[in-house]
């Protein structure tokens, strides 16, 4: 057992079968390939986690998660089960097949070095070593660059486990305590994807302390996707995006596998 797996929950299962698991501390950044046909579970270990995420198609890298296309097609401003995350090319990059939290932010964006400094003060590597203050923008940029991507790929991102409410006059309110310990969201990937994420605090989190929370990544094998899949059936738009995705992979969209 490696050091990184020593404190994992291990207990999490899905019918399709466990593949791997990894613990991410608060303030970390991470990227990797999540394959089509697998489920990525994000678990909020202590509660009040925030996971800022971007997704790109690994084959055609300028195909990427698109916030407006995702929201418009499903007439929602936030994400939960059974929403799908659409790319800018009319396809599905992942589907939300389980969600014990209920609301994930799509409009709050990322923290920046200057906003983190204004809010929390300075904590550099020289004074704090690996506990130095991270920010969402630089964290995701760092991971994107490992895959040949760059600043132009920083698009409106998802902030898993965070909630931003919009009043009728358009004003935005960060809703604290949206997620409690043990909440998770299961993302079934429909496309081989580059996934970049940061566990820095949400940019609208009013807490005065820099105290980002840890999460756990777990990957399972996905079940066969049936015609009565809740995400596909959610809206006619979802089924058409799924159809486009099947065609992209050279598969008959009417086959149940």
């Amino acid at each position, binding site marked *: 057992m490696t050091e990184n797996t020593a404190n994992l929950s291990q207990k999490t299962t899905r019918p399709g079968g466990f593949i791997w698991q990894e613990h991410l501390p608060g303030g970390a950044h991470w990227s990797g390939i999540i394959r089509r046909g697998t489920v990525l579970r994000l678990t909020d270990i202590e509660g009040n986690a925030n996971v800022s995420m971007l997704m790109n198609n690994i084959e055609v890298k300028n195909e990427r998660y698109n*916030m407006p*296309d995702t929201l*418009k097609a499903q007439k*929602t401003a936030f994400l939960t089960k059974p929403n799908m995350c659409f790319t800018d090319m009319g396809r599905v990059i992942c589907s939300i097949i389980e969600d014990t939290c209920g609301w994930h932010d799509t409009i709050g964006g990322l923290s*920046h070095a200057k906003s983190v400094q204004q809010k929390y003060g300075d904590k550099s590597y020289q004074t704090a070593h690996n506990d130095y203050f991270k920010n969402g923008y630089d964290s995701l940029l760092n991971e994107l660059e490992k895959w040949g991507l760059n600043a132009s*790929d920083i698009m*409106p991102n998802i902030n898993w486990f965070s909630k931003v409410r*919009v009043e009728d006059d358009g*004003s935005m309110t960060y809703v604290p305590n949206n997620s409690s310990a043990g909440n998770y969201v299961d993302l079934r990937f429909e496309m081989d994807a580059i996934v970049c994420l940061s566990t820095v605090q949400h940019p609208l989190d009013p807490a005065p302390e820099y105290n980002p929370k840890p999460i756990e990544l777990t990957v399972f094998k996905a079940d066969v996707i049936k015609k009565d899949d809740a995400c596909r059936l959610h809206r006619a738009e979802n089924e058409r995006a799924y159809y486009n995705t099947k065609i992209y992979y050279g598969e008959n969209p009417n086959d149940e596998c």
Partner: protein
Amino acid sequence: MTNANIDANRIVYREVVEAGDPWMHEVKAGQRFRIVDLEGNQAVDTLFYNAHDHSERYSATDTIREQGNIYLTKGSVLQSNLLNPMLTIVDDTCGRHDTIGGACSAESNTVRYAIEKRHMHSCRDSFLTALGQCECNADKPMTKGDLSSNINFFMNVPVSPDGHLDFDDGISAPGRYVEMEAHMDTLILVSNCPQLNNPCNGYNPTPVEMIIWK
């Protein structure tokens, strides 16, 4: 107070962009840029770039978060992805502009309306047409990867407290305009939206006028 009439001597650029057309132009720091909705209910899909470094560009999420409101109107500071002010909306006779709804595309039209709608004219195709023909491409090509979430001037995309999002009829009218002052030399990329399938431009795309003055 609105200032509908601009001193003709100060105008450096003036052009009508026909329904469905792309348009690209630079506005210099300190200059003002006005978009006039000539016939009303039009949606003007707009992106902004630092004219000297296109990797710095308008950021929808940074803009709405920093002002604490999802709608753009007079006083809104349009932020870049580096959290620098690009332009400020200094006058607005419409009252509300969208920056969450994004731009229509051939591909998203297949999802939203029907697979067969792919071949209809779309904003992201217009953006790509403009980028492909732009002289700004000579030294550092701009590509699809440079297309981020845009502003839809004159468009109404309300979000409710329970998180519902919808496209509503426009709240603009003939002659209404929005006016910005540039804080940096800014490249403006516009698709005068040709979308025929939703009420964002009343199912009837119409021309707009662009005016730049000093």
